[in-house]
């Protein structure tokens, strides 16, 4: 097992395998250029690659320098090779071309240039480089096919933040092609997945592409014992409501407030307890994954339950430290000392999470958060949705964050099955006058993807009732239903997964028909030799038999709260299946709005 990734192999599906696979491929890729090298990183890749290969490993492979990809010229270095690692994006090609031009005019020691596209080469990018006259300067142009990055023991992400926008707004399904490819990679490692279910246009596209790719392989099926039983592919458009709401789990709130980026967050250093922090460092990076056992326990809890757990833990650890006074004999002492590193780590983590929880609590206790949350709750309960809501009006008047305002309006639109023309025009005009005229395009974008729409057929109430989306009396400490992640609202997407596992989608056919996009069902044949031997009925062990495993792929993003809900389901005795989550990206309502908003680069007007 590779270093620093033990937590990946702890679940039912050993994702460490995938990480090792990528590591091997990557090292093979950079080993192709001989001698010392510097890697120039596309910013969007540093995070994901940090999860795959640590710097010390790269050092072993003669990587001496690392630079971020910037315009202008490269910092000086005396390496033999310069390797550009980039996503296939045209704007990045500009930067690479500039770098090369500068390097070439510099002269001096001759370097070799290499280009590695992640995850695939692109014709347009290569053309761009040719137009700029630098394509010929590369000794090699390769691709490194890393699409799904293992984030945690049960979580994979493609980290394509634009996927939602590209697919649903711009009709560019490139990311779906990557998604299908990544599913093929997964099947090569973990065996063919027998049952495929999907809902939504993109889900259908992905399933179609997978079928084609299977055909293209020409019978060279992976000869691996299938470890995943079911694949569920969901379009984000099937459930646009959930990501708009405030996530109320611990991890979800951290994401809402600080924004989790590749499993890590940056926090103000002075708030992180009395640890020795260097002078001048304003923010500190905290890594959030299940390697931290305390975080593993806290992450999926409703935030209201976090306080009691943290204090319980604190008492426990104080007691354990107290044991040293009780230790009399050398043997007892030795036992205590052996526990010490673990205890210290736990205490450190406890301190960190206490600080984080305090920071989160400051935000959740603030009036504007409470007011907005109340407003959201009203909307999803179908209250006050048909007229201009005073809170929305006030938020606009006070020029609060545009993303917050848009989220509220979109929630209202979805819960009211569209807005009345008068309400809609009022909101639009308010937004344009307050936040700027360019947002006429933003509003148009929201309409295109269906988050904002004119009044139409009434479906929300039916869906809400038949899928029991609203749950009264949620126990936030010891939940009995997934609705705890939004304190009373059960995410529609996860409900669909829940119904699929038990009793099956046939029971909710009518609701499914109300949701947008086609339903997909497919069975992939598995060679007889690789089929799981189901224990016979007579065998007494069958009752304790292994649990099934479902891979659920969110096209267009998933929130931490939804993941929490799925983990909750997997822990239930009657859940019937374990879950591994894959997604194009990890999203929050805020990030979704930021992506859909039209940002214009304005040119300063000529004063004459």
């Amino acid at each position, binding site marked *: 097992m590779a270093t620093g990734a033990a937590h990946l192999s702890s679940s039912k599906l050993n994702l460490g395998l995938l990480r090792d696979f990528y590591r091997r491929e990557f090292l093979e890729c950079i080993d192709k250029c001989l001698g010392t090298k510097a890697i120039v990183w596309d910013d969007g890749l540093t995070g994901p690659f940090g999860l795959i290969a640590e710097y010390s490993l790269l050092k072993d492979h003669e990587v001496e320098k690392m630079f971020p990809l910037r315009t202008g010229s490269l910092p000086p270095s005396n390496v033999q090779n310069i390797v550009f690692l980039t996503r296939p994006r045209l704007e990045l090609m500009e930067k690479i071309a500039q770098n090369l031009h500068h390097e070439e005019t510099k002269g001096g020691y001759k370097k070799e240039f290499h280009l590695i596209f992640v995850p695939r080469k692109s014709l347009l990018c290569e053309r761009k480089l040719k137009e700029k006259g630098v394509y010929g300067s590369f000794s090699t142009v390769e691709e490194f096919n890393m699409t799904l990055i293992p984030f945690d023991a049960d979580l994979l992400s493609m980290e394509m933040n634009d996927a939602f926008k590209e697919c649903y707004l711009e009709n560019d399904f490139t990311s779906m092609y990557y998604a299908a490819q990544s599913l093929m990679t997964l099947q090569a490692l973990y065996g063919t997945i027998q049952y495929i279910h999907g809902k939504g246009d993109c889900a259908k596209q992905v399933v179609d592409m997978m079928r084609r790719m299977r055909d293209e392989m020409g019978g*060279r099926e992976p000869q691996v014992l299938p470890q995943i039983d079911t694949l569920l592919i969901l379009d984000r458009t099937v459930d646009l409501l959930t990501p708009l709401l405030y996530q109320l789990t611990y991890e979800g709130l951290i994401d809402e407030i600080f924004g989790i980026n590749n499993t890590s967050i940056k926090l103000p250093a002075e708030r992180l307890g009395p640890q020795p922090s260097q002078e001048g460092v304003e923010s500190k990076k905290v890594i959030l994954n299940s390697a931290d056992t305390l975080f593993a326990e806290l992450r999926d809890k409703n935030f209201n339950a976090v306080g009691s757990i943290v204090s319980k833990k604190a008492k426990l650890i104080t007691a354990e430290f107290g044991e040293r006074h009780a230790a009399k004999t050398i043997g007892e002492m030795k036992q205590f000392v052996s526990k010490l590193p673990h205890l210290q780590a736990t205490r450190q983590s406890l301190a960190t999470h206490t600080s984080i929880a305090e920071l989160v609590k400051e935000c959740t206790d603030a009036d504007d958060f409470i007011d907005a949350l109340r407003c959201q709750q009203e909307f999803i309960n179908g209250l006050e949705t048909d007229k201009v809501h005073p809170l929305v009006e006030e938020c606009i008047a006070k020029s609060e964050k545009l993303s917050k305002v848009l989220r509220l309006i979109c929630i209202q639109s979805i819960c009211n099955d569209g807005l009345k023309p008068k309400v809609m025009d009022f909101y639009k005009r308010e937004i344009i006058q*307050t936040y700027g005229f*360019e947002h006429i395009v933003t509003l148009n974008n929201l309409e295109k993807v269906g988050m904002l729409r004119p009044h139409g057929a009434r479906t929300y109430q039916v869906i809400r009732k038949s899928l029991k989306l609203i749950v009264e009396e949620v126990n936030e400490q010891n939940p009995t239903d997934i609705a705890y992640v939004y304190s009373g609202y059960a995410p529609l997407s996860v409900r669909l997964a829940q119904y699929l596992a038990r009793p099956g989608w046939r029971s909710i056919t009518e609701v499914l028909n109300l949701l947008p996009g086609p339903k997909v069902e497919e069975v992939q044949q598995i060679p007889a030799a690789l089929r799981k031997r189901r224990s016979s009925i007579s065998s007494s062990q069958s009752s304790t038999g292994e649990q099934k495993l479902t891979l659920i792929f969110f096209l267009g993003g998933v929130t931490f709260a939804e993941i929490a809900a799925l983990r909750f389901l997997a822990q239930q005795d009657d859940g019937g299946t374990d879950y591994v989550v894959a997604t194009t990206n990890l999203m929050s309502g805020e990030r979704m709005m930021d992506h859909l908003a039209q940002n214009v680069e304005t*040119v300063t007007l000529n004063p004459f």
Partner: protein
Amino acid sequence: MATADWNPLGETYYRKCEIYSMEWAGLVDLSKFTVAAAAYGGPIALLKDENKLNRGATTNIKPVVSVYNAAGRLLSQIRWSSGRIMKMGWTIMEDLLFVQDDGVVLVYDMFLGFKRTFSMGQEAKDVKILDARIFTSFQGTGVAVMTTSFRIFLITNTESPRIIRLAEVPDLNAVPNCWDIVVMDRQVRALVGKGSELYIVDQGGQYQKQDPKTEKEEIGDYLDLAVSFNNKFVVLFTGKGHIWMGSSDLLNCFGEFETKTAAKPQQLAWCGNGAVVALWDRFLLVVGPQKYWIKFNFECPVYLLPEVDGLRIIGNEQHEFLQRVPPVTEQIFKIGSMEPGAMLYEANREYQKQHQKADEYLRMIKERLDVAVNQCIQAAGHEFEASKQKQLLRAASFGKCFLTDFRPESFVNMSQMLRVLNQVRHHTVGIPLTYTQLEHLSMPVLIDRLVLRKLFGLAILICQYLKIPDAEGQSRIMAHWACYKVQQKHVDEEQLARVISQKLLERPGVSFSEIASVALEHGRRQLAVKLLDYEPRASEQVPLLLKMGQLQPSLNKAIESGDTDLVYTVLLHLRDNQEPSQFYMMIHTMPIAFSLFIQYCRHQNLVLVEKMWEQEDNQAEIAYTKIVRSYGEDTMDIRTKILEESSHCFHRVGNIFAEKQVEEQIKLLKHQRKLEDEMGLSFVDMSLQQTLHKLTLEGAHMAADKLRKEFKVPDKRWWWMRAMALAESGDWAELEKFSKSKKPPIGMEAFVDVCMKHHNKQEALKYLSRVLPDHKVKALVKVGQLREAAEQAAENKNEDELIYVLGKVKVADKQLADNIRQKIEQLGSRR
């Protein structure tokens, strides 16, 4: 007797056995032909040599070239129509090479289909060549030529000819008696015999004179020389009838022999690595290292071909194989052998006769039975006759019965290999491979050679028999078959497509695009299109479709695949090769292609995007694109002009709301521009609200009010903006005035809010008294008067408010907290 055809040569034995009686018997007289046969049981090419018939008399009759398989079955025949052939020979890929006197080399396949040609260089062309050699190099097959100026040029690989010139032999003024090529350690050298001197010349420009150590004082001129199959040994023949055998660097001598004849042999060759043969007309001499010798007489002229483990002797009637009796065979069959294998073989024979001696023999080798079994298995491999193979295998199988833990693989493998060997040795196939040769050649290559001979059926049967995976076996052969099929011009295309698809569709991993591209090469376009339709891999299919000009299908397939890059490949090809109108028409009906092209345009230039939408007459999209584009213009006039166009577009689709918004934006821009002129501050690109805010901060209340009226700003927003801006600028007097101007629609608590936001408690308190009771608790909390807030909440009899206040109480203030809890209890009890 098994040893009947064994001839002793010192301590070893040589045997000569017939492998075929030639089908050409009676039709072909080898003395009239130049012969070239390919190693590893390859085919035989005959060139009718008119010169051999009428010496000296030059005729203009073009010679005939025929190719036979090793059993003498005619494969093909053509009349030669190119230049004078100096040398003929085979490559390891079983292509036939003809070296012409002008240094041009022509490459033909086994069925004499022309493949390609290349030249051995300008000098060879100018001065002509004297002689040529075809040899096996480390890279493939090489060709060496000697020009009339006695220079040697060579290439090491006929697949990618790169001409190398060797060093010159000093003072070479006449045709050398003999020369040949030696390949050692990735170096190609030539060995040239000039009179009584011997030279090695290499590609680095070096020459070395060689003096092979010999026991004789004088051995005379070097007349002939030959290099062994593995390039490790050399044999020299001198004018005094002396044969010298040694290593190819001429440093070590293995043996010498006096033939007592000065006549140069017609052929000099190695038989394996242990003996040398020399042929004079019908007399063949085999010479071993220790001066031992054997002689054979033939009734007709023969041709000798060295193989890795022996020598093939091709005659008019017969095709024979001369080899050293393999040691394991010797161990079993040598008279009086006491080897375990020999005993086991005897035991089995007795057992067949149901004789008790079987047991006696077995007892003798009890301890070494496993050795015996292995010997019998190995020996079976070296037999040509099926009956002998069977006997040996039976013996092995018999011995196996007495062994408990003998691994069966070697037995099974040998049985399988022999079955395959016997099949390919059959005279209709005509590949007389020995087991040793097959080991060198490897099974995949043998299957390739069957495919080359178009024996697809046999190749497939062998693959099935050996359970070779489909991708490397059957599917690949089928694909070759299909490639061959599409070249059959006489068969109808429709029918061909049907036949091919029937056979191949169920086969996984067949590349239809490869077959299609062969069809295309042979000018069968329709067939190619049909076949290509079966190709599952879009990345292979689409480029070929484009090449064939199948534009619409290529676009369809690219889109179906979902591979964006492929779609772009087609789109850009279409755009570059078609009229714009045609191009638009084509992608008009394909939303995905259209969207992707829009994406492409967006990166290039927004004007292009607009043009595309114009083609679609999508006014709304044009309008939005124009709006985004307007921000990139740096002159007011152009910006307003684009916005006006945009508003017209909205008008056309009846989007009155958007139309109005654009018009208002134009109006706002104009106001902002005017304000900039008047105040010397920048306003453009601010929203209306930001503009008002800035104006208020600057104290330009009149201007702000004017804009408010013009743009009909709702009261609430106006009040919030103004209160916030006034508090920000610290204009507390104006703020108070504002609060009294009329009843604030945002409530008096907003004023408390904005004051506290700028930490002015003093001012905040001014407004507190005017806050309505409903909002008072929160306002009190905001200014930090928690006790009063609690009182107010109790007065309001509102439990929620009490809890809210309790939440804000600091932990230290225990008294207040208890107080509030008490109040909550009171409320609860009263109910």
